């Protein structure tokens, strides 16, 4: 825009507050998730508490209908959510980036076909695709949920990668590299990937949040990790059944999920500001 010329020095790439807050929120979840590997307040399968107890000093988030400590379950939920997020984004990134880069380099016909397939796949919500993939695996497990979400996310990643890679391939320095005889694989590694990486990283962070929500939804629908994996979605589904007598159970797992997703989104926001030198702060 030509509106106003402000010839000030560009603000240094300071770490923004969103980055710090996001890191902190995600960090808390990560710390809790690691902690559950060695210690939880109660044995997760112990039904020693009273049934459907309201939150108290003994049971910070109350107990479920079998008398299990909800706070313990929510802590384990952190671990599951992070596992699913990392796993699904990892799988989605591996498949998506590979196919996306291939499409960008492929012949016109193959590229068009892949682009059309991406477009159609992303018209379906991640959750719906994941549902179908879960249904395709014989037994529902944590890994089938991760795989399903990973495959569902790969279409989004693939589409973005293809667009970004094509944009890079049109630039002059690629032509320069080609005329100087650089091989295609080398061009991908030294030119394409480094250039699209910052944008992809931000996208991965956002996908992580999506995956966490989608996993909770899958579990809520009964298609996620089976018990004793205490996914927040399943906790909420169980809490809904007892919401007349014990409404508190429907609050805490949702809050935990909310905090994680907001943390991730803020983190992604911060990452965008730090990682992309061409993005200036808007007025």
């Amino acid at each position, binding site marked *: *825009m*030509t*509106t106003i010329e402000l010839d000030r020095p560009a603000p240094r790439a300071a770490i923004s507050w969103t980055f710090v807050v996001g890191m902190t929120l995600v960090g808390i979840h990560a710390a809790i998730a690691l902690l559950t590997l060695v210690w939880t307040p109660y044995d997760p399968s112990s039904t020693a508490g009273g049934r459907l107890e309201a939150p108290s000093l003994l049971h910070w988030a109350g107990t479920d209908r079998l008398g299990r400590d909800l706070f313990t379950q929510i802590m384990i939920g952190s671990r599951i959510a992070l596992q699913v997020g990392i796993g699904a984004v990892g799988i989605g990134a591996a498949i998506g980036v590979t196919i996306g880069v291939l499409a960008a380099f492929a012949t016109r016909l193959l590229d068009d*076909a892949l682009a*059309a*397939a991406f*477009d*159609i*796949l992303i*018209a*379906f*919500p991640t*959750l*719906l695709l994941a*549902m*179908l*993939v879960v*249904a*395709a*695996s*014989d037994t529902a497990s944590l890994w089938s949920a991760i795989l399903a979400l990973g495959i569902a996310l790969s279409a989004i990643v693939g589409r973005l990668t293809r667009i970004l890679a094509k944009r890079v391939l049109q630039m002059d320095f690629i032509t320069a590299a080609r005329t100087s005889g650089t091989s295609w694989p080398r061009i991908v590694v030294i030119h394409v990937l480094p250039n699209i990486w910052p944008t992809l990283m931000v996208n991965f962070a956002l996908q992580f*949040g999506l995956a966490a*929500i989608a996993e*909770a*939804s899958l579990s*809520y*629908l*009964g*298609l996620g990790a089976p018990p004793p994996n205490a996914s927040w*979605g399943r906790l*909420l*589904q169980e*809490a*809904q059944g007892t*919401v*007349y007598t014990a*409404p508190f159970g*429907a*609050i805490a797992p*949702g809050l935990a*999920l*909310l905090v994680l*997703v*907001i943390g991730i*989104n803020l983190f992604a926001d911060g990452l965008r500001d730090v990682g992309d030198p061409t993005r200036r702060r*808007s*007025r």
Partner: protein
Amino acid sequence: MSLLLASLVLFALLRLLPGDPANALLGVGADADQIAAARQQVGSDLPLWQQFIRFITSLARFDLGTSFVSQAPVGEEILARLTVTVPLTLLAFALAIILAVPLGIIAAVKSHKWYGGLISVFSQLGIAIPVFWVGILLVTAFAINLRLFPSGGFPRQGWGNPAEALRDLTLPVLTVATVMASSLVRYVRSATQDVLGSDYLRTARALGSSFTEALLRHGVRNGSVPIISILGIELASTFLGAVVVERVFTLPGLGSMLLLGISQRDYPNVQGVLFVSTLLVLFIGFFADLAQRLIDPRLRDRSRGAAS
């Protein structure tokens, strides 16, 4: 063309489902002859490409087959369930637009005021919340504490009892609209920001147009082009995402049919729901495209150029 490709993707997804669909017809303990007969009936003994041809030709005749489980025609079942899902989606969509457009514009125009910032914060919260949790919270607040609306269900006679049906849809619609509106607010806000920073708005004001007049005459049209494509995507994904909200409120809609079909391995039902959903998604995309072309002459020109 895209429909053909979509059905190919659909077909591939369905074949990914494990187990032989014939098994679903029989249950456990069937002998080999029975299985062979069932296979023939379902067509799963044919080579894949023949199965695909059969799949395509029956779809082209809008013959969606009969359910393995209930033996009812899939098409009729889908039509019945659309009378729940379509009103739910459209009402939520309308409510979301009514909420999100003014809020998004206020958030952009009054971004320096406290309430402008507050709207932005709330829309951030909204996109981080899963639909079903919003549903559960609304049930807790309105169905259990205030006893204003039922916590779920739908009248047996459907729209034969319109007052009851609307009452039952109120909380589901609110649930979907809340989530949809918060993501829409962000798009409306950023489209408005683009308009506010635009040179043409500045020109209009430099020549004596008031801010409101310039925004109405130039901003609405320019801002609506990106919003329309977002609206199309949101509408389609809400329609397809109805499975969750229908589960929360135990509504007999298309989503719950899909969920049931998946758990019962009822192929024709799953396939039919996915096919109708795909059709609707393509349909919505087509209309969003059309609407954008009506507004933006450059898009009209480009497509004309491509056609010739």
